[in-house]
């Protein structure tokens, strides 16, 4: 294993220390339990957006803490969900009296830990809603399983909901918006190489020089299918078509009902993409792929979208949700409406994402 680290067990803490040393104007860090939060929080009257998950996906989530995006992020160990005490402590520290939205990626660990945190927060009198992101079309047969994973759409939801919170939306409005972003966003990714978890020290999976792993998640977990290496155009096409041709998707998720004070099952349906849709096209590096290659993917993606009558009105290209140093990319398409576009364009100022200010 060759990485710019000291001891594997210090990876998360030292990375956070470096981060706060670099951006003291934007963020602060609390250790034990770990969470990164806006330097100017809590903000009275503003809904706080909190996310979190395993580390190793940087800049998501810690790099997105700041004005116009997240109020706090709870980093777990590498690829391991953070714990309820982190989420609870962050909620307490960020609460400006208007409640908390937890944005949760759909992994059993994240879901269960955020559920426990939600129950704990509610019992302490903090109003919390939580919305699951489950946008990975590589996962099939969800009816009796864990359902789809949360991947690229998470980044877009955090940007859009963060802007909404900044503009004074209330908790229920933001939760509804977040759910809408999730339902309209779909993603899929491919790995050219594995990544190496620092504590493990060896690659999570082995790929030969001729193989790629199609339909991977963001934790180095194996994908849907291993196949021989393909050209960028073929890869872009496989990813894009899996997304565009994905049928509308039904599943039942648990959401906290803060009127009833209990978990309720909610049935949700993703619409399929249709001709004429305006979309945001997001080409994401898995960490080790340079932007020059992402543009080659984007080139083909733009062509495919046009052929399918999807109008790309916004795009995002870069390393936003990664698997350590893995080579590969993911594509996310999000169907936009006017409100989402307005919120997308709103200013943001975080360690890893800044515009308009």
């Amino acid at each position, binding site marked *: 294993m060759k990485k710019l680290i000291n001891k594997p067990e210090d990876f998360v803490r030292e990375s956070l220390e470096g981060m706060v040393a670099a951006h003291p104007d934007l963020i602060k860090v609390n250790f034990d339990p770990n969470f990164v939060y806006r330097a100017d929080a809590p903000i009275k009257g503003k809904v706080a957006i909190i996310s979190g998950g395993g580390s190793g996906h940087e800049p998501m989530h810690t790099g997105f803490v700041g004005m116009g995006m997240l109020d706090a992020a709870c980093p777990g160990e*590498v690829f391991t969900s953070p714990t309820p005490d982190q989420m609870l402590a962050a909620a307490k520290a960020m609460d400006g009296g208007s409640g908390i939205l937890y944005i949760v990626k759909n992994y*059993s660990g994240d879901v269960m830990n955020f559920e426990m945190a939600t129950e704990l927060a509610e019992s302490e009198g903090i109003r919390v809603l939580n919305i699951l992101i489950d946008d990975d079309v590589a996962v099939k047969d969800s009816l009796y399983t864990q359902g789809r994973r949360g991947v690229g759409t998470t980044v877009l939801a955090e940007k859009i909901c963060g802007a909404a919170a900044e503009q004074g939306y209330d908790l229920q409005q933001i939760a509804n918006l977040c759910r809408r972003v999730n339902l309209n966003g779909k993603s899929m990714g491919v790995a050219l190489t594995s990544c190496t978890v620092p504590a493990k020290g060896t690659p999570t999976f082995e790929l030969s020089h001729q193989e790629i792993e199609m339909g991977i*998640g963001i934790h180095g977990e194996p994908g849907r299918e291993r196949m021989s290496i393909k050209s960028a155009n073929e890869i872009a096409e496989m990813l894009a078509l899996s997304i565009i041709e994905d049928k509308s998707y039904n599943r039942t998720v648990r959401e906290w009902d803060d009127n009833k004070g209990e978990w309720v099952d909610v049935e949700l349906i993703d619409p399929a993409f249709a001709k004429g849709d305006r979309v945001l096209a997001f080409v994401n590096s898995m960490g080790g792929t340079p932007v020059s290659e992402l543009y080659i993917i984007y080139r083909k993606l733009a062509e495919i979208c046009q052929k399918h009558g999807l109008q790309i009105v916004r795009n995002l290209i870069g390393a936003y949700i990664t698997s350590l140093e893995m080579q590969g990319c993911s594509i996310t398409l999000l169907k936009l409406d006017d409100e989402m576009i307005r919120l997308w364009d709103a200013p943001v100022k975080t360690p890893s994402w800044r515009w308009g200010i």
Partner: protein
Amino acid sequence: MKWLQKFATTLEENKDYLTELDAAIGDADHGINMVRGFQKVITQLPSVADKDIGSILKTVSMTLISTVGGASGPLYGTLFLRASTAIAGKQELTEQDMLKMLQAGLEGVIGRGKAQLGDKTMVDALAPAVAAFGQAAQESKLMLEAMQKAVAAAEQGMKETIPMQAKKGRASYLGERSVGHQDPGATSSYLMLKSLLDII
């Protein structure tokens, strides 16, 4: 409690094994997660050494919840939490206490994780073990023998996860590709019960 000490050592010894199992169908951290949690547990034990079993298990639960993370953190955390409530105040456990404790723990895992038998999770090791222990207890078997049956059932259940297709947890994303691999969580659950047997 010697059991926790023993389990912590066993986990340490099986850290790479559990992690390798998780690498095949998950994200290669189960051994790392469990060891991190139980190492912390070990450091906390002295401060509760004179407490009743329920209190000790409650401390274990809180420690696991706040250090393990991932899926196994809340699951094992809930398991120990419910177990602690089931035997609150006890200093020693009869076979019936043990059964109540195991049942409560299992229910906690199922309540939190919503997994059913056959979903290729730790439930596939825990549920048969609890059933076997219950059966033995009903037949008035003594602790050692009942626990032997439970561990045998857990081992059997653990092995039966190999041909299963995962329906819960990270392995479920693999669909059919999860078939042919032993579930890491079922394995750590088996090791937990085995450690308990070893110190009886």
